[in-house]
């Protein structure tokens, strides 16, 4: 039973839900701060107990990151697990719809409902959907969990690191084996992502021309003027920035240097994960390098905003499933998220690990002081 629509960064472009024509959404744990983004509205709604579950879309971390910053569970399935029919396309090879929930079980059940092959989406998988709750309580005994050293480098907030390392110890006590691993190309993820995603977006958003639907300028002139004015008036600043970036990177003379190069890096990032998963069952670490930041703090610094996705974009580039579960609070009372990444189609195990952690800890029961 749909309860309503939630706020988001326009066209899913953003990490704070501040790029919205409707105004920003506030983090229920601290109303002066952002809930994360781009699916910050749903994260906040679930955190504030307005709804038990909600949809988000994750292209570079847009479910996992706001889940972490807002203290709820959020999952991005394997690319192709959930149909993209009906999702306003941002970056077609990266977008996935996924669930938010207060608990891992809620997220798992909701994911099961939305998953499955859709003949209207040529990229949706025909792979059968397992019951994601079936092995949820099986625990982590004997599971090998990779801890990538690149996820704990400079830029990681010390309070976030403390919560995440505590969480890893909990998992260890529950029987998991922690293994140090390396995902060497992690640091190139943002660069690759912020070429590939804007390129695809520049094409996906070309249909918003005012001809058939959407905003059309009141001041029409020639066809070219109508297009230019409608799109300039209709799109927000960040959207226009990414469209221009993407158009540039695809244009003649730059295509090889940027788009093709980014695709090669993407391949290397996928190879990193493939190699890691030969030795471990899942990968764990922080979801976001920083906790919720004050509204307006990064709004005028796009690069700083982009870096919020540093730990989540590689999951999208590789197409693998990822879950964020609450793993504590900073001294300032801001939620921290633990990220669990699995190999392709392994949502079951990712959820199971999240549940194993959740049942040893009190976080899922905590509510924001609203």
């Amino acid at each position, binding site marked *: 039973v749909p309860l309503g629509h939630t706020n988001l960064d326009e066209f899913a472009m953003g990490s704070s839900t501040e790029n919205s024509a409707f105004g920003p959404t506030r983090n229920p744990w601290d109303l002066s701060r952002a809930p994360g983004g781009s699916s910050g509205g749903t994260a906040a709604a679930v955190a504030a107990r307005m709804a038990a579950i909600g949809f988000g879309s994750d292209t570079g971390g847009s479910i996992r990151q706001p889940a972490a910053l807002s203290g709820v569970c959020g999952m991005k399935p394997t690319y192709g697990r959930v149909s*993209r*029919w*009906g*999702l*306003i*396309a941002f*970056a*077609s*090879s990266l977008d996935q719809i996924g669930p938010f929930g207060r608990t891992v079980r809620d997220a798992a059940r909701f994911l099961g409902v939305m998953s499955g092959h859709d*003949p*209207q*989406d*040529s*990229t949706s998988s025909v792979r059968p959907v397992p019951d994601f709750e079936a092995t949820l309580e099986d625990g982590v005994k004997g599971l090998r969990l990779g801890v990538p050293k690149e996820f704990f480098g400079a830029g990681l907030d010390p309070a976030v690191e403390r919560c995440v390392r505590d969480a890893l110890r909990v998992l260890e006590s529950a029987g998991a084996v922690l293994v140090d691993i390396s995902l060497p190309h992690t640091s190139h993820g943002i660069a690759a992502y912020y070429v590939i995603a804007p*390129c*695809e977006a*520049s*094409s996906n*958003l*070309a*249909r*918003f*021309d005012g*001809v*058939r*639907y959407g905003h059309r300028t009141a001041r029409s002139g*020639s*066809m070219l003027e109508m*297009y230019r004015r409608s799109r300039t008036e209709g799109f927000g600043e960040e959207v226009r920035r990414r469209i221009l970036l993407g*158009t540039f990177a*695809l*244009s*003649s003379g730059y*295509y090889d240097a940027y*788009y093709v190069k980014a695709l090669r890096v993407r391949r290397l990032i996928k190879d990193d994960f493939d190699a890691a998963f030969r030795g471990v069952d899942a990968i764990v670490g922080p979801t976001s390098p920083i906790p919720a930041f004050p509204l307006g703090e990064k709004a005028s610094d796009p690069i700083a905003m982009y870096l919020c996705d540093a730990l989540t974009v590689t999951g999208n580039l590789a197409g693998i499933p990822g879950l964020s579960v609450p793993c504590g609070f900073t001294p300032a009372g801001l939620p921290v998220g633990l990220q669990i990444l699995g190999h392709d189609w392994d949502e079951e195990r990712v959820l199971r690990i999240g549940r194993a952690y959740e049942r040893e800890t009190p976080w899922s029961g905590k509510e924001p002081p609203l």
Partner: protein
Amino acid sequence: MVIGLEVHCQLKTRTKLFCACPNRYGADPNTLVCPVCLGLPGALPVLNRTAFELAIRTGLALGCEVAAETKFDRKNYFYPDLSKGYQISQFDRPLNRRGALAIDAPGGKMTVGITRAHLEEDAGKLIHADGEEAGGFSFVDFNRCGVPLVEIVSEPDMRTPEEAYAYLMALKSLLEYVEVSDCDMEKGSLRCDANISIRRPGAPFGTRTEIKNLNSFKAVAKAIEHEAHRHAGILEAGGRIEQMTLTWDAVAEKTLPLRSKEDAHDYRYFPEPDLVPVTAPADLQDRIRAALPEPPAARRERYVRELGLPPYDAGVLTADKAVAELFDRLRAEGLPPKVASNWVMSRLLAVLNDRKLGPAIFLPKVTRIADIAKALEAKTITNQVAGELLAWVLDSVETETVAARIASLGLAQVSDAGALEAIVREVVARNPKIVADYRGGKPSAVQALVGQVMKDTKGKANATVARELLLKVLG
């Protein structure tokens, strides 16, 4: 002249290339549309398997190498008739490559290479009110948006407008034959752009220009001729050809610049992320190849070689696949090749042209048509009666056999001299003037009397016998 042609032909599928909308011409505007072909947010393309197979069939018919694996790319540009702001097409790995088409050019047989033949979607149609874009309104009809096209690019192997014309005729004939397209330029199911440059014989290729908006094969030939002259004029005056795209003004019969190289689109091609690569494995190609109908040229040669038909007849019969099938079916009914060929060419085609019908209308009636032909050959009936019977077979819904009708209406040729003699004498008695002409030294006058005997016998008299009798009676 160096000429290359790009032909876009719409595939005869039931539905569009990436959605389930009907692929149909002439419907009310914007009634054959859906979220996918309208480019609504959240819509995604799904490849039409039939279109894919027809595109393979096209490639095989053109002798192309079919790619074992192929993919789609986005061709990005803004125009109101392009609903997504990009066209899903194929860029660097087209489905079909390196084929050839044999054509009968005025200078003799030649082969035109086919560089590639790929699959892509069509755009919608802009309709300008008041003939102007500014000032008046422009309307967009998306019925055509998403219709499957095969774009066939020829090698620049043609050297004269006549060769270009012959290429188009041969291509249209082939595509109709293998039933991938209706190839109707008036309905837009076949469109052509021409690329032309000029050079001195043996010199490297000159700069080429592209001509669009060519609405008939004749227009293609005329435009090429005109544009070649334009190039020549510039070069002779010491100028340089500027690479550009022009439009053909069919009224003024000249080319007009549309856009220059600087204004040329940068299409920013990249692989279509909403579609997965598709395979055309060997067994699929073999299956499609095996189902290919015999191409017109081969059929023509077979008619000459195996059936002993004159090349002209073979050409007429194979120009249209339905006509060739009609011919084959008549032969299957037991008519000798020359008889069947004569019937098709001199009687059936005449009726079709007269009534503006297609050859297929005769197919359910081939048995009875053959019976009439056999009766005529056996001289059971006269030519005139044969014509009447043919009309009856076409127009009536009666199922009487030809033999039965000949019997019941007494249509059999009257060859018996005894039966005819009375009528002959009556005709002679009735026409003293013509008889006088004949006896006065005009032998051909007897034909008029034969005609009257035919009329009196309602066409059943054996004309030869009637003529002999008349000559005898006239003395």
